[in-house]
């Protein structure tokens, strides 16, 4: 069958889709978007979490045909999605909050001393990429180890902060309880979400942090 839907703001068409294929398979194997990960294929691990018409879902549990005509956001489109959300919200608070130190506003979060963090500019093929605040926070907080759970966690964490700008730790744990991580013990993931929320609270899209600190 043919399936047509919007992925990360662009209309995509997939031909010769077998009826048993999942949204995850179509994204990964037919659309060249392998960012969403397949770790359990039964909705237990959350590694394949995407937004479907705004709702976070496990792409492995969505039959490809169910997506016809609908709107999907994957980790590959998260930065654009966050930027568009920022635009819609308007940048009114941009100027006023620029001077705030995001880490100091994080309460119990943002444990690591930001001045200790340093990464060389221009190192690695991914540098220079625009990131969603939650993506930058995962890097800064050390929330990425093997990274296999990361795409799903990012989509879920971004959705949490979208609907709850100041989540408590219990809120974060509840919202991310469908996303398994085997490497980190979750502590630095909590740090990352607190950091992303604190930064969003004190200014748009990571603008509150000086560039040198990255």
């Amino acid at each position, binding site marked *: 069958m043919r399936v047509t839907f919007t992925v990360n703001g662009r209309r995509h068409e997939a031909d010769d889709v*077998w009826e*048993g294929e999942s949204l995850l398979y179509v994204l990964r194997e037919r659309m060249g978007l*392998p*960012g*969403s*990960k*397949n*770790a*359990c*294929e*039964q909705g*237990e691990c959350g590694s394949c979490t995407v937004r479907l018409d705004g709702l976070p879902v496990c792409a492995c549990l969505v039959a490809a045909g169910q997506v016809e005509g609908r709107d999907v956001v994957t*980790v*590959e489109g*998260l*930065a654009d999605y966050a930027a568009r959300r920022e635009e819609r919200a308007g940048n009114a608070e941009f100027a006023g909050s620029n001077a705030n130190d995001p880490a100091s506003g994080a309460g119990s979060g943002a*444990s*690591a001393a930001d001045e*200790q*963090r*340093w*990464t*060389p500019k221009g*190192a*690695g*093929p*991914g*540098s220079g*990429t625009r*990131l969603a605040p939650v993506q*930058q926070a*995962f*890097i*800064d907080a*050390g929330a*990425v*180890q*093997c*990274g*296999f*759970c990361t*795409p799903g966690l*990012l989509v879920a964490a971004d959705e949490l902060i979208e609907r709850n700008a100041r989540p408590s730790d*219990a*809120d974060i*744990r*509840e919202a*991310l*309880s469908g*996303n*398994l*991580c*085997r*490497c*980190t*013990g*979750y*502590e*630095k993931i*909590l740090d990352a979400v607190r950091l992303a929320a604190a930064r969003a609270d004190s200014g748009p899209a990571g603008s509150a942090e000086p560039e040198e600190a990255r």
Partner: protein
Amino acid sequence: MADVTRTPTDLTQASATRGGIGESTLRPDGTLKVTGEFAYSSDLWHEDMLWGCTLRSPHAHAEIRSVDVSEALKTPGVHAVLTHDDLPAETHFGLEIRDQPVLAKDRVRYHGEAVAIVAADHPETARRAAAKIRVDYAELPPVHDEESALGDGATLLHPGRADHHAGHVPHPNIVHRQPVRRGDVAAAKARADVVVAGDYEVGMQDQAFLGPESGLAVPAEDGGMDLYIATQWLHVDRDQLAPVLGLPPEKVRLTLSGVGGAFGAREDLSMQAHACLLAQVTDRPVKIVYNRYESFFGHVHRHPAKLHYEHGATRDGQLLYMTCRIVLDGGAYASSSPAVVGNAASLSAGPYAVDNVDIEALALYTNNPPCGAMRGFGAVQACFAYEAQMDKLAAALEMDPVELRQRNAMTQGTLLPTGQRVDSPAPVAEILRRVKSRPLPPEKQWETSAPDPSAPDRSTGGARGVDVRALPGGLSNTTHGEGVVRGVGYAVGIKNVGFSEGFDDYSTARVRLEVVGGEPVAMVHTAMAEVGQGGVTVHAQIARTELGVSGVTIHPADTQVGSAGSTSASRQTYMTGGAIKAACEAVREKVLERGRAEFGSYHPAWAHAELLLEGGKVVTDGGEVVADLAEVLGSSAIEEEVEFRHRPTEAFDLTTGQGFGHVQYSFAAHRAVVEVDTELGLVKVVELACAQDVGKALNPLSAVGQIQGGTTQGLGLAVMEEILVDPAAKVRNPSFTDYLIPTILDTPTIPVDVLELADEHAPYGLRGIGEAPTLSSTPAVVAAVRNATGLDLNRVPVRPEHLTGT
């Protein structure tokens, strides 16, 4: 939150170049991993690629009478179907003993053993074709425990075995047995005022990395094979693959692709040989990706164990003797069972000074799933038992359990049961003191000051609300605090670092320094498998510190450089980090030689001063700039390749277990605070504090991340994780629906206290970090549950029915 405690020594040094060792630099692969661009082995794609699929045995033990692949071969889209009879060369593989068939021949020995493989143009076509293969099995009674393995007339798993352990084991169904004897246990027992004994059991834990086994094999024009693979040790994969493919090793080239976690499960081959064989026969690239179900059958697990321990002590709590017997179930094939036995035996006394010991550890061959490497490697099982014993002894002596441990804690200079002297700091008493002195988390954290309208299921009415997310049972809303009791427990453990028992353990690094775009840049090339631990981050830090450059490029890991050894045994920062340090030192020498030859007349310091590379300059040890590094290098590149070895070890004596077997030790202690719903048997771990000596934290952020991750895997073993194997030796829960690992709701806050006491034998004084926290986490949680409930609890994982008696 991490408190990093620095104890200055002359071995730990800060870097004068930014981004060097000791800083929490960020991962070089971080951006790719958060954008979804990082290429894991399961993300690879090749034009004309086929998909491979494995047919696995539904029985744990059966004779294969016949295999008929004709229907499978007729399926449209199928390109090849292979069985044992189609193997072109060597038919078996194995890490230490090559006892495992690439495809089963006339007998299957465990549930899920590979019998046939299929290549097709769609993964579903391959799966459906595999289902059409007709295998005629005649089931055999399974060997499933010690009695059926060693009793009269026991079926032999590997009749006629001729491996290097076959000669000394008391029974052919024992893979390896290691006794350790020192002192005079009988005399010590006569002096003991108090004796405690117990039987303990550890269930079969799965590594449960998130990225299932996968890889892409691409036939090369020279008749060789290129394999892009997620593994822990490229070279040992190649050494097992080349004979199976009938190729010389240099024609089998492996490149590491993105690895979604490992924890020991990628030490053995999984789909490597199958993908390469299908690629060889079809002359097409072949990709194999396991799903979660197959992953549970596709790798070895942590050895389940039965342990009997006895300790005797004086009335004031001094340990006089310890005896133990540790029986590990190795399953159908050897994997790394012999080394796990060596670890379990040599570390069975824990981080305590005990002069009189009688120890026996062994691994069985059975028809259960093969077991091998998992984080903690033999030391985890022993730690659960000896720490339970310490609590039991403390209770018998009416002593504080931490005080009893501190009283017997080993220190630098203590002899291990193997007679090996601990010749680096052993702050066992200190890490216990640190976790104990931490303030306890507040009681009843589920109580909110007022009903919180945003918290779900929160309120029982009145002035106070309840947040069920902080209670045992969580969002299942099973209690609002009724029947909930708190307990606190402690544990400490010892793990060896690096490969022990005389293994020639080395790593190789190639470092190239040259000017790129006007700036000096170091290229670091090793075969180290980055599995998530952050090796690539610290490798760049080491190069910056040693060469004084900010630009470092990490070359992809492959077999075009010498072996790095395995990413296991907490060894890579020590070993490949050590190799990079040594290679950088060699490069630095060449740079200075070149400088002296070409610029020696420009500055007197070239002739006599101790020169360093810092901040892109050649400087004196006083900090005076002598030359620009870029200027000295000019247009030439300086490249050095170095093999690095830790100090040599020796094998344990086969009857006494004596020997200088270990390289280094790593110590961690935990305090667990739990709350138990005694009516339903549900456990909520409230806090799991850890103190660990890391020698030198090359990257404090990553070090703490390792400790928190290891701690959480220990929590999983304590209260939820077990592969259930029934008496027919069949696996009953191969899925994330039925095999539970901790979620973020199950995991408490994990405060980490990092000590840095340098080990003078190691690069920068560092200690391997990754495994130690996995040891003590499990017994600390169980001790806290015992403390809360008053129950004995001699088996992990602790299940609700163990707490309710139902």
